[in-house]
């Protein structure tokens, strides 16, 4: 056992609360370590010194004052019992707020319907089916993305209509 290890068991050894195995370990260490032996001896002296602090007698009126304070406590009548405790009231209020908040959130199940395409959008999709089904065009779309912002070909004229005109405004 090292000095650091014995330190945690030293107090229990000195106040005779260590079990027999702990006691034996500490005793073996103390027999071999002069520094810890000195420390143990000084702890014993310290406890004697700590006993020098005089005991304070409570005042003669101590019990009477406790009784007085108890008598001064407001009695919780039948009406007070109906009023909830602050912690309980806070929990109920928190639960109510959470319920209202959760009820106000859009449900995930209704989300697909909310974003369902309009008739017009569905017709546009049908118009573009030719492009969407063109496998070659889709696989080469990376090339298209590298083209300048203003396309030179006639393949996607509709896209330009929604873009602000850069020159000649």
């Amino acid at each position, binding site marked *: 056992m090292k000095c650091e290890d014995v*330190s*945690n*068991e*030293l*107090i*229990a050894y*000195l*106040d*005779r*609360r260590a079990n027999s195995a702990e006691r034996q370990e500490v005793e073996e260490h103390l027999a071999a370590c002069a520094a810890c032996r000195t*420390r143990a001896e*000084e*702890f*014993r*002296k*310290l*406890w*004697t*010194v*700590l*006993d*020098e*602090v*005089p*005991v*304070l*007698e*409570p*005042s003669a009126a*101590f*019990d009477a*004052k*406790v009784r007085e*304070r*108890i008598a001064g*406590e407001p009695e919780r009548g039948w009406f007070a019992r109906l009023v909830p405790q602050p912690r309980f009231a806070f929990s109920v209020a928190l639960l109510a707020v959470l319920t209202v908040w959760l009820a106000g959130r859009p449900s995930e199940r209704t989300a697909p319907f909310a974003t369902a395409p309009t008739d017009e959008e569905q017709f546009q999709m049908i118009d573009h089916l030719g492009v969407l089904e063109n496998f070659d065009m889709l696989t080469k779309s990376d090339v298209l993305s590298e083209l300048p912002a203003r396309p030179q070909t006639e393949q996607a004229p509709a896209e330009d209509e929604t873009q602000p005109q850069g020159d000649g405004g």
Partner: protein
Amino acid sequence: MTRSDVQLMLDVKAGDDVSFGLLLQRYRLPLVNFLYRMVRDAATAEDLAQETFLRVYRARKQYSPSAKFTTWLFRIATNLALNSVRDNRHRQLDVSLDAPAEEDEAPVQIPAKEMRIDEHMIERDRAQFIRRAIAALPEKQRVAVLLHKYEEMDYVEIAKILDCSESALKSLLFRAYETLRVQLAPLLAQPVAHRAGEGRPS
């Protein structure tokens, strides 16, 4: 036959005020002294001890003997004492630095061996020096030492009051006693003659 704390408290719960009086009688002295060593002011210690008993009485209807009565009692007292110490520290910060120091804060001179001073004065100064060394310990260490040394509580109970493991408590106690050993070294070298023979917590 002496009734146990738990039995007395169960009787208090059932409405027996005489049992509450017996608990008061049994614990007012250790409680006042524990609080006095915590807050270092007799009037405040009495006030906090009374408040502790008031809280016990207030909670009598909810009492269940799941833990030792003293664990509950001293846990209430510890919380009250720590709050008081912290409040007092905040109040002291507000006081002007120019304000005269309290008499209790005057430096204590450890009497040298060769000095011939009245024995009572020496004892008083030594006690003051010890109290101050205990008060200078960190809060948790201070509570641990007071409950271990003066209340002679077992490790399980102190650990419950401090809300820590037994192993952490042992380490806490070692550090606290080690600090006190260094701080009170001048007193260890000059033990008071009539105290010889004492020297362990229990």
